[in-house]
Each structure stands twice: as C-alpha cells, then as structure tokens.
C-alpha cells in the first residue's frame, strides 16, 4: 500500500472538521487539574503561617505575592506565545522582567527603611532550605500539567518553551509557599525564590526538549 501526497492531502481535508481546543484553554484546564495536587502537598506538609492575619499588614509580605503572581502570569503569557511555531522570545521576553522589576523596587524600598536586622541576616533568613525544596516539589505537578497542555503547541525551541513552563509552575508554587514562609525580606525572595525558580526552569527545559518536540 502506498500513500501519495495527493491522497494524504485529501485525507487531511476530510479531517478539517476536527478542531483542537485552544491551547490557552487546555493550559488553564491542565493547571486547574494539577493545582489540587500541589495544594494537597502544601496543606499536608507546610500550611499557612499562623500569624497570617498580622503578616498581611506588612507590605513586604504582600509584595511576595505580587512578585510570584507576576512571574506566574507573565510566564503563562510567554508560554502561550512560544507555542506558535514562528514565535521567539524576541519582543516578548520582557514580560519576564516584570516580576524582577517588582522585586528590585521592593529591595529598594526595604533599603530605605530603618531595619532591626542586618542585611545578610535578612537575605539568609530562616527557611532557605525549605524554600528551595518546597517550591520545586510543589511545582512538579503543575509543570507536568503545563507540559501536557503545551504538547498541543509547536514551539521552535522546545527547551526554551519547557523552561518558561517551569517558570510559570514555579510562580504558582511560590505563591503557595509565600503564605507559609516567615521570611518576608525582598532580599530573601530575590535569592532563594530565584534559585528555586531556576531549578524548576532547568527541569522544564530538560523535559521540554523531549516532550515538546513536534
């Protein structure tokens, strides 16, 4: 049996009525499906910090959520962009600078305020080891979901697309983690959250280079 190109074209045209779900919707559904797993990990292992009601009045506690949500949202937007075959980071990568910008502004703000603890103490914090393991662990279900949905796409550079999927997963996982962690200094966030995000991005790049090829 053979299949010449005209026959293939006729077959593809016959399948024109089949329409895949838009990738944005698939990504949202996959993340919603994975979120309960990450939340279960969060509530069984960590939980919200006990003094959360007081902490909410601390602008640096709130800033953590601005940073992590900005990361999650901007990386999601970049992920959806990179799912297109002709897309590249050029002209779109600056989205990822938004969370970094918020963080830099936060560090600047903290510098201008009188501090009771020295800078290095704030940077090192008390939870850095938890932070570096909990964020990646809670990211993994989200990353798996995101990669599953993004397989519908056609990224020119699967490893880059996978890394950005890792960043979006880390953004959401870090949002959960931020409500547990008592280290609120933007210096702590800039150091340990960034390392955790980089770890997940590396896992995403590795996985993406395998599963996002089309």
């Amino acid at each position: 049996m053979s299949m010449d190109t005209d026959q293939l074209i006729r077959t593809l045209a016959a399948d024109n009525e089949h329409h895949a779900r838009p990738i944005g919707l698939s990504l949202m559904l996959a993340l919603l499906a994975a979120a309960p797993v990450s939340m279960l990990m969060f509530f069984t292992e960590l939980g919200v910090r006990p003094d959360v009601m007081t902490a909410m009045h601390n602008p640096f506690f709130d800033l953590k959520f601005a940073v992590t949500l900005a990361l999650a949202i901007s990386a999601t937007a970049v992920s959806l962009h990179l799912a297109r075959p002709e897309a590249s980071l050029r002209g779109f990568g600056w989205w990822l600078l938004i969370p970094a910008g918020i963080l830099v502004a936060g560090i600047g703000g903290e510098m201008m305020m009188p501090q009771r603890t020295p800078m290095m103490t704030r940077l090192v914090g008390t939870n850095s080891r938890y932070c570096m393991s909990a964020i990646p662990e809670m990211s993994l279900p989200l990353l798996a979901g995101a990669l599953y949905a993004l397989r519908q796409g056609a990224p020119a550079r699967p490893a880059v697309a996978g890394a950005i999927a890792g960043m979006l997963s880390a953004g959401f996982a870090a949002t959960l983690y931020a409500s547990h962690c008592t280290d609120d200094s933007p210096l702590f966030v800039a150091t340990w959250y960034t390392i955790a995000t980089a770890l997940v991005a590396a896992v995403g790049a590795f996985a993406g280079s395998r599963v996002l090829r089309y």
Partner: protein
Amino acid sequence: MRERDDEWTGLMRSAMSGDSAAYHRLLKAVTPVLRAAARRGLARAGQPVDQSEDIVQDILLAVHLKRQTWDSSAPFAPWLFAIARNKLIDTLRRRGRRIFVNIDDFAETLPGEPAEQTASAGEVAAQLQTLPARQRDVLQSIAVDSASIKDTAAKFSMTEGAVRVALHRGLAALTAKLREQ
C-alpha cells in the same frame, strides 16, 4: 509573492471556519512550494533529494495537527515556513547529518519554481501498517479509495462520528510514529 501569501492566508481563514474545500485547495497550493524547498534543503545538506516527499508529507501532517496555533490575524506563510523549517531540520538530525539548513530555504518570500512530485514517499505508508486495524481501514478508505466519510461509515458499519474520530486519531498516531522513528 505578496499576492500568493494573501491568497494562502485567505484560504486558511476559510479553512479554519470550516470550509474543507478551501483547506484542500490550500494544501494543494502549498505542496509544490514545500517540495521545492525540501529538495533545496536536502541538496544543501548533501542528502539525496529523493527523500523530499517524505519531508513534504511530514510537514503537511504537522500543519494539519498544529493548525490551531496559527493566529488568524497573522499571515499564513511565515507560520507555514516555520513548521517546514522545523521538520526539515528534524529529518536531517534524525539521519545524523550535520545541519546546513539555510533560513533562506524557507524564507517568507520564497523564490524559486514550485516542483512537481517525482519521488515517492514511503514513511507515512509504512507507518500506516502499524496502526490499529480500525484506524488503518478508515484512513485507507478515505486516502486510497477516495471514499467520503459517509461512504466509509456505511462500508464499515460505523457511525460518521466514529469514522471522524478514527480518522483524526489515525492521523495523530501516524504523526507520533513518524516522530519516534
């Protein structure tokens, strides 16, 4: 070139809104251009050009299965050539060759004459044999026997919906098998 690109974009818009005839015309129109580019790419990489038809079929399958990533407000040609470039690079990489794909082979304004089919393709046909019987029967009926979905449904005592599902799954499975090769 400009006119051709606008025509392709228009056909793809119609196709995406459900016009299968426009889709068929579009695929027929892009194929000779893809073929010429695939041949040029193979020649440049020092590969025999008789593999070009396999690449063309690979590109067409990817175009089909990834078409929801096309933004209908954007021109069609850059999207198409991005997929074509990816598939050509992928083919050369799988054959373990150094890659010399010049971006110009799939430039937005592609110069050069469209090419007629001379070589035959074997990979899609070979993978077709490995599909589950139901998918293979449906694909064969539509591709080789030129049967419509309705006729195919009658022939195998299936509903038209089931034929559509088998057709789509068959095409997706075929593409996955080509990639795993």
